[in-house]
């Protein structure tokens, strides 16, 4: 599990809680704390998302693949963005999807969830809900039983969640 420190308070705050309490929190914190210092330690190195991606892929290179991603193009509430992911697969011992990883490209903490499938799953399909701090791409990586990876991305515009969009 990744523990990545982020110094940007706005982004950090935006990842959480209800919109109303968020607004209150943001103004309070803004009043109390000096502006966050730029992250000094890591210059133009890998972003938290790129580091997370490296953790999943290791040395492997994903190829673009057919991943069905159902996710709203515009999410009104970044606190719960519903998604459904599925991949056509016979799900046999020699040809199945082992895992589907879901990452956010611009949340302070990029990991959303990793789902593991077995032959008893019958289908490589999953639905859940994610948090999105702001408008960004959602990245889905799937791992085939052969060890190959396929990847796909979707952009989601986030209306309440602040920062961008």
């Amino acid at each position: 599990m990744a523990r990545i420190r982020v110094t940007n308070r706005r982004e950090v705050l935006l990842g959480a809680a209800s919109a109303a309490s968020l607004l209150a929190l943001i103004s309070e914190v803004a009043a109390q704390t000096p502006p966050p210092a730029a992250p000094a330690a890591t210059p133009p190195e890998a972003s938290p998302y790129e580091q997370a991606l490296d953790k999943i892929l290791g040395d492997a290179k994903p190829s673009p693949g057919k991943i069905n991603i159902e996710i709203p193009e515009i999410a009104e509430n970044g606190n719960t963005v519903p998604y459904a992911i599925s991949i056509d697969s016979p799900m046999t011992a020699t040809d199945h999807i082992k895992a589907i990883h879901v990452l956010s490209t611009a949340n302070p903490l990029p990991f959303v969830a990793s789902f593991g499938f077995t032959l008893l799953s019958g289908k490589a399909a999953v639905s859940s809900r994610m948090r999105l701090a702001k408008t960004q791409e959602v990245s889905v990586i799937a791992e085939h039983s052969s060890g190959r990876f396929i990847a796909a991305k979707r952009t989601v515009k986030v209306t309440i969640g602040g920062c961008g969009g």
Partner: protein
Amino acid sequence: MSLRPRIKLPETIRIGEIIEVKTLISHTMETGQRRDKDGKPIPRKIINAFRAAFDGTPVFTAELHPGTSANPYIVFHFKVPGPGELELTWSEDGGAVVSERLKINAEA
């Protein structure tokens, strides 16, 4: 974690059928990134894992991270090999565990 999870299965299940299992558990999924009124960090507390097993054999797993919304909702599929027991387990940071056992009365 005292609340019971909510689970939805089809009413009738046939052997060999791929069924959809819908699950929801109430949980704040505190990210560890927020601060309280006094500026103190609120410690992370999330459901970090979910597992489904049928008569002890893994069916589906989910590793959850702070990017998963509060009240984690997970829908997965299960190819029913026959009658048996489906066990669903949610694990929280700190080690607390909630599990539910469901009889699967699959018919031919």
